[in-house]
């Protein structure tokens, strides 16, 4: 799969009487290549352009400019051929017929993807087994839990045995056990040689599953590499975490001015604000940070090795 300088802009209008039009560039020159059988992660905050990029690759959106091909087929010119070979799964509750059973949902989409009747039966049985839903397929979807719906989504996306699967935040809103099962399902796709493009907010998920990752911010790819490369390359150093109570925004800004500090992020945890500072490896900034916090009440202070999440936070907050 190849994306070359993909761009997509949207026109929006505001106001009722005086309508003002503006153009928003959701994807600004995204390029990447995904090798066959590779699991590639596209990470980025909400509104970064992940879903727009995926929708261009699965032929639901036309790029404003640039080009993309999937399995050597152009996503603009060879629409039908691309659709036959790809699967698309998105996260959340929607995208299923609630009044039909899980089995009927699968049969419906199997027909739309032209799966032969005999093959259909075998394939649906195997997929229900894969996503752990054997025995529940005759129940109506409206009675399914979120995790079950998501697993049914995965099965739906794999009905026609696609060569490439696009997973757009598939684990969103799923409980930890369901998310773990989902990761196992995605890992099994990888074992079967399926090419996977995964978008997710969960760094451990990307870290565990992806061969390579691209971080997208404001419609542009700001980093690309293996999870290890990203961890090393971006957050080469250590992470200082400081628990605070009621830290003013102005004070947080001053911490970023400290020489060895690359970035500062604030995580709200109830009454706590945890300051996550990405620092140089050999630096000692704890005293400087505490002195700048002044009268702010401070809890636990700890230092640790950077994770992929730290790398991600640094990339998207720079």
């Amino acid at each position: 799969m190849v994306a070359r300088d993909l761009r997509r802009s949207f026109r929006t209008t505001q106001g009722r009487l005086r309508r003002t039009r503006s153009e928003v560039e959701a994807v600004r020159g995204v390029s990447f290549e995904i090798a066959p059988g590779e699991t590639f992660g596209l990470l980025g905050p909400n509104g970064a352009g992940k879903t727009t990029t995926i929708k261009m690759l699965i032929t639901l959106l036309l790029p404003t400019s640039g080009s993309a091909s999937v399995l050597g087929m152009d996503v603009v010119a060879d629409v039908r051929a691309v659709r036959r070979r790809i699967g698309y799964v998105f996260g959340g509750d929607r995208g299923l017929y609630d009044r039909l059973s899980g089995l009927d949902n699968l049969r419906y989409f199997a027909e739309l993807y032209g799966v032969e009747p005999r093959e259909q039966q075998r394939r649906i049985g195997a997929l229900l087994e894969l996503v752990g839903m054997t025995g529940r397929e005759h129940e109506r979807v409206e009675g399914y839990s979120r995790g079950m719906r998501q697993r049914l989504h995965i099965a739906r996306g794999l009905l026609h045995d696609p060569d490439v699967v696009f997973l757009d935040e598939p684990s969103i809103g799923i409980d930890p056990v369901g998310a773990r099962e989902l990761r196992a399902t995605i890992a099994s796709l990888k074992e079967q040689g399926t090419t996977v493009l995964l978008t997710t907010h969960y760094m451990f998920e990307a870290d565990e599953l992806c061969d390579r990752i691209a971080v997208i911010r404001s419609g542009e790819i700001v980093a690309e590499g293996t999870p290890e490369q990203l961890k090393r390359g971006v957050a080469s150093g250590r992470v200082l975490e400081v628990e605070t109570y009621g830290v003013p925004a102005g004070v947080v800004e001053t911490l970023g001015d400290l020489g060895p500090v690359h970035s500062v992020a604030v995580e709200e945890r109830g009454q706590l604000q945890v300051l996550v500072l990405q620092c140089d490896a050999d630096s000692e900034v704890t005293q400087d940070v505490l002195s700048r916090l002044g009268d702010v009440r401070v809890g636990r202070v700890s230092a640790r090795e950077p994770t992929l999440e730290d790398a991600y936070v640094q990339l998207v907050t720079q």
Partner: protein
Amino acid sequence: MTRLTTRARQLWLCYRLQLKILLVSPFEGFLGVVFPLMFATATLLVYRVEGDPRAMAYAGLGAAVMGVWTSVTVAASSLLNRERWAGTLELLVAAPTPFLMVLVPITTAMATVGLVSVVVTLVWNRLVFGVRLDVASWPLLVLGVLAATVTIAMFGFLLSVVAVRYRTAWALGASLEYPGWLLCGFVVPVSLLPLVVRPLSWALAPTWAVEAMRSAASGGSPWGELAVCLALGAAYAALAAYLGRRLIESARRHATLALT
């Protein structure tokens, strides 16, 4: 399997599943069967004042088709938006099957519910109001009913494609409901309408279907009306197919498939 049999099988299975969706919904059931009965009741109560059995038979037939018009136009105008709200519209478009092949079974399923309502309404008219249909040719009457149902479904198909870009598409169907009753001559002869609106009546296939049904019932030849009715239905389908293709292209260009 040949391509044709594959497509036929696909249409049949998708139709069955779409019908299943409609039949398990209490709202659809209410809209499809109970609503038409209420409309037929109101109409026949008005006509009963005259005490003319021929007028009652005239109104009874029209009231039966009136129910199909209501259930199909209102439901079909919001058909695609319903798919959009369910999050299935993008998946249907993303499938390799042409989008129109996806829409046909959905609209046909709606028409089937409408057909059930015709039968239920006729039985209701007979049992509650004693409306006796002296039908000269039952096969031709059935043909007329089928033509009415199919062409109203095609009209609904056209509406669903036209209205999909509008989030308040349901309002379009609702606003067509009562004018349709009058324009199609379900309970009032088209000849009583002002001259200026009669071309609208002639452009609506159900007008001809109801005329065909009445001709079949009274012993006349319904073939002319049936031909016009089916030609109009085919025109709706062709127009919807053309607009449907344009719609998908436009949605890919303007990102309007997932508007929720």
